[in-house]
């Protein structure tokens, strides 16, 4: 192992360079002495003998150099020397160093912070075994909530070749919500009903206890595996939890295990897992209504997660699923089956909509960093010009161009590395701010941290910055001949004239990038304002919403409970109206539904169905929410099971089925849960569209039925008050409690808050991109101001001559401002061209504005030109106040 010894020897030599140098010198001296002595013995005079000895030796300096090269790591030693030199240089100009360091550290830190969120939420592989081969099998029309037939699932399990393992689970959030009773107050939690093999498929072992077996699943046993969170909140993390009994929807379940915190499947809010067969709807014939031509939309929504065999991609699996689906449709037709199967990589599913927003943020901070780098490059360039003398001197002394470039690059790398280190606390602060501010409950957000991949990202970004602001000015110096044609006397003036071009291009680039950011921020801001200005169709002020449910989500709803609650609440002083509805503010996907029959129209085939929402209301719902009655009347107590079935529809519904007609008095049949599918409903009222599925969504057709005729539970209770609804919350809560002590009360919020929450993601991204773009503008502003200031200082002589030749002061000032404007205009043109691409990337985040929005573009242009004029103002005044006599005399 010669090389090991060589390397060790060399490292050892590195540490005692001086001693070894001295030793070598002594050795060489003795060598020459030996030789001279021998020469003297041969009869040469002492001087001749010494000269001859030196000649035979052949170059003491070269030998020393060769010896040193052999001894250590010459390249490394050179680098170390460069780093030391760079540190000295940076120390020597603290002003430059601190400005550059702060600028870069802020830029790099912001990038690191945003990246670390992306890393945690989007990039970090899911904690499951072979997570890259996991796919979801879902309904293509409704990947979030759509379902598949359980027997189809079994067919895939049997027939598929691309799938290695497959497991089913029950996802729909509404139907697998259960009430946990037994502790002080009943709570509603999200359960997940899953196949026994899900745990082994995902490859996650329980933290405590065990998961359930296939035998338990086939025996429909009531066992439960708790999530880490539920275990902590309900059992205080005690190991005694295993074997205890909990009440789920009033039925006893035995706790057999606890999953670790990383296990968040199918969603982050999954609080417990139970056998798929213990779901109350498992094989429930009453929810699978199918009369040949028509079928229920909300039958069992099983979903499946599968691991593909190695070598099979999602696309191949998709092709195979399509084939299996087609053959099932042929051999075993079932109208309950969806329109197909979609194979989605699991990682795509998680992260969802927030993905684009996060990447837009990363792009914005990236642009910001680029602008910051341009400014630092300008500083480096200005310093480089001042250092042209030093560089020329080094070159004259024999340094090669490569060597000097290496030196300059080292300086940049040292600066960037320092900035990288300084940026870490900045990033840490940024992460904390982001985790608090990011509104959408992103999965795994809490896992955001500065870890190894994030540090790697920071390192790469810092190094790229170094190359950008270090090398670009170095090349610019040479290309412009600042170094080669350097002469002592005119170093500065020569350098500035030529390298000014590089300065200008950097400024143009800064302006262009600022335009891109400002344009995106402008479009997002306009979208935000437009969304905020959306008329929800109801009056959100002074309305409190509370959700009241009883254990056993699916059991028959005691209508009397709601009647009592509503009437008791109505009697409270300060309450103006109380109403209830079965579901409100459902921001998930809306199902496509068809009507069995519509008066005056032929029935529609399944492919023509569109989104339709069907709700049951109670009490003074429309008054409580502040709806607008367009025609007809609201429900009243004379509408009951004995009278004709009535419905209130919204304007979207009227437009969809009876365009241009008066819908009042029209008849239609629908899909409802009463099993009276062939009853005709009569439209008695028309209300204005209400954006209860999200402000940004266009209103969808809506049918409201009366609780006396529909018989659904109406857990969402709305209370309109005359004063501040929050102040009444506790008294309202007490009233509900007094009616039924075991009722679960949740989500007690003013609906105004609900609307604010809907705006939160948009507010967040708009604020952030807005801040980034303003910072960009500020940096560009400082950049152009600095350049103009500098340029006026350098051109004093020229200005003096102009003045001496009769130019007036306003003309001189205009000269400076004109230059600012020219740079801004170029930046604007380039920036607008770039924006064309950038705005397409953000188009999905826009609402109500097109990517090409003249208002935004004009505003951005005005802001930019204004900034340029303001930046040029002071330098222009300075130029105008030059005293020609003094300027000419001083050189």
């Amino acid at each position: 192992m010669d090389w090991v010894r060589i390397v060790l020897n060399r490292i050892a030599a590195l540490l005692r360079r001086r001693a070894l140098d001295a030793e070598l010198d002594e050795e060489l001296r003795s060598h020459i002495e030996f030789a001279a002595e021998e020469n003297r013995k041969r009869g040469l005079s002492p001087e001749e003998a010494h000269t001859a000895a030196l000649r035979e030796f052949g170059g003491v300096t070269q030998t020393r150099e060769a010896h040193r090269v052999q001894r250590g790591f010459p390249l490394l030693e050179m680098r170390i020397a460069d780093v030391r030199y760079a540190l000295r240089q940076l120390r020597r100009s603290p002003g430059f160093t601190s400005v550059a360091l702060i600028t870069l550290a802020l830029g790099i830190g912001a990038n690191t912070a945003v990246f670390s969120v992306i890393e945690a939420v989007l990039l970090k592989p899911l904690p499951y075994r072979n997570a890259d081969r996991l796919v979801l099998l879902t309904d293509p029309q409704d990947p979030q909530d759509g379902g598949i037939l359980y027997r189809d699932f079994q067919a895939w399990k049997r027939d598929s070749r691309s799938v290695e393992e497959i497991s089913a689970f029950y996802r729909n959030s509404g139907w697998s919500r259960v009430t946990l009773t037994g502790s002080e107050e009943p709570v509603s939690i999200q359960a997940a009903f899953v196949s026994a093999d899900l745990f082994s498929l995902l490859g996650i072992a329980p933290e405590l206890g065990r998961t359930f077996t296939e035998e338990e699943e086939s025996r429909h046993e009531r066992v439960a595996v708790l999530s880490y969170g539920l275990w902590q909140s309900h059992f205080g993390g005690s190991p005694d939890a295993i074997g205890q009994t909990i009440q789920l929807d009033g039925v006893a379940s035995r706790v057999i295990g606890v999953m670790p915190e990383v296990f968040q499947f199918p969603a982050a809010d999954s609080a417990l897992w139970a056998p798929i067969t213990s779901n109350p709807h498992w094989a429930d014939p009453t929810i699978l209504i199918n009369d040949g031509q028509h079928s229920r939309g909300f039958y069992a929504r099983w979903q499946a997660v599968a691991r593909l065999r190695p070598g099979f991609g999602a696309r191949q699996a998709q092709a195979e699923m399509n084939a299996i689906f087609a053959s099932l449709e042929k051999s075993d037709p079932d109208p309950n089956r969806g329109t197909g199967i979609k194979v989605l990589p699991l990682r795509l599913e998680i992260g969802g909509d927030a993905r684009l927003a996060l990447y837009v943020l990363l792009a914005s901070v990236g642009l910001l960093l680029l602008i910051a780098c341009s400014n630092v490059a300008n500083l480096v360039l200005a310093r480089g010009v001042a250092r042209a003398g030093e560089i020329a001197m080094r070159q004259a002394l024999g340094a090669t161009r490569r060597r000097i470039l290496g030196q300059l690059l080292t300086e940049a790398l040292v600066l960037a590395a320092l900035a990288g280190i300084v940026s870490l606390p900045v990033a840490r602060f940024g992460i904390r701010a982001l985790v608090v501010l990011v509104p959408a409950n992103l999965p795994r957000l809490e896992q955001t941290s500065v870890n190894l991949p994030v540090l790697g990202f920071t390192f790469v970004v810092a190094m790229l910055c170094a190359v950008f602001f270090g090398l670009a000015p170095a090349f610019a110096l040479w290309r412009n001949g600042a170094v080669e044609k350097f002469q002592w006397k005119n170093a500065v003036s020569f350098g500035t004239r030529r390298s000014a071009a590089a300065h200008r291009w950097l400024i143009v680039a800064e302006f262009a990038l600022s335009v891109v950011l400002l344009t995106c921020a402008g479009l997002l801001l306009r979208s935000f304002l437009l969304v905020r200005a959306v008329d929800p169709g109801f009056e959100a002020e002074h309305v409190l919403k509370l959700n009241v449910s009883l254990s056993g989500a699916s059991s028959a709803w005691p209508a009397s409970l709601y009647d009592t609650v509503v009437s008791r609440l109505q009697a409270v002083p300060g309450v103006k109206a109380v109403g209830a509805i079965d579901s409100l503010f459902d921001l998930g996907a809306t199902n496509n539904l068809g009507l069995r029959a519509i008066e005056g129209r032929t029935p529609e085939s399944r492919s023509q169905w569109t989104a339709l929402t069907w709700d049951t209301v109670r009490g003074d719902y429309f008054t409580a929410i502040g709806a607008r009655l367009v025609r007809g009347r609201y429900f009243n107590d004379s509408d009951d099971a004995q009278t004709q079935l009535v419905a209130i529809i919204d304007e979207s519904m009227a437009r969809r089925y009876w365009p241009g007609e008066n819908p009042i008095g029209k008849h239609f049949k629908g899909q409802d849960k009463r099993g009276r599918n062939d009853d005709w409903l009569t439209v008695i009222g028309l209300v204005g569209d209400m954006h209860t599925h999200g402000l940004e969504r266009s209103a969808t057709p809506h049918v409201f039925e009366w609780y006396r005729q529909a018989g659904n539970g109406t857990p969402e209770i709305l209370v309109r008050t005359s004063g501040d609804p929050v102040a009444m919350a506790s008294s309202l809560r007490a009233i509900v409690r007094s009616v039924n002590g075991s009722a679960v009360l949740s989500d007690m919020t003013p609906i105004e808050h609900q609307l604010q929450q809907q705006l939160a993601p948009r507010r967040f991204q708009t604020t952030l991109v807005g801040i980034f773009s303003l910072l960009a503008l500020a940096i560009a502003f400082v950049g152009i101001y600095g350049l103009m200031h500098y340029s006026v200082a350098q051109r004093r002589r020229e200005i003096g001559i102009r003045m001496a030749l009769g130019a007036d002061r306003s003309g001189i000032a205009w000269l400076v401002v004109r230059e600012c404007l020219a740079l801004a205009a170029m930046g604007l043109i380039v920036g607008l061209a770039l924006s064309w691409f950038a705005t397409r990337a953000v188009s999905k985040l826009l609402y109500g504005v097109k990517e090409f929005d003249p208002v935004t573009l004009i505003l951005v242009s005005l802001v930019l030109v204004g900034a340029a004029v303001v930046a040029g103002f002071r330098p222009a005044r300075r130029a105008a106040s030059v005293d020609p006599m003094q300027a000419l005399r001083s050189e």
Partner: protein
Amino acid sequence: MGEDRSDVLQGTLDLMVLKTLETMGPQHGYGIARRIEQVSGDSLRLNQGTIYPALLRLQQRGWIKAEWGVSESNRRAKYYSLSRIGRKRIEQEARNWERIAETMARFLTASI
């Protein structure tokens, strides 16, 4: 300086140094250089200085050792001697070199 004198081939100097130390025993740098010049006669152009990097290289490999000592003329000098590893390697290195020389010779005769 005749045209027929050649520069020292890369790598051969190491072997010459080893061989010198093997026959002569511990030597200082000048002694080694003189010995190589004497043995090779006038056919080799050697800048004596070039043996120092070679000596360092051999030291780094652990084939030779160095020690300060005093010469007959009472001068302080660094004395080099073969290490155990070096002694073992000489034979191998010599064989290597012979093989190269042989191959080279075959090429040269073949081309005639």
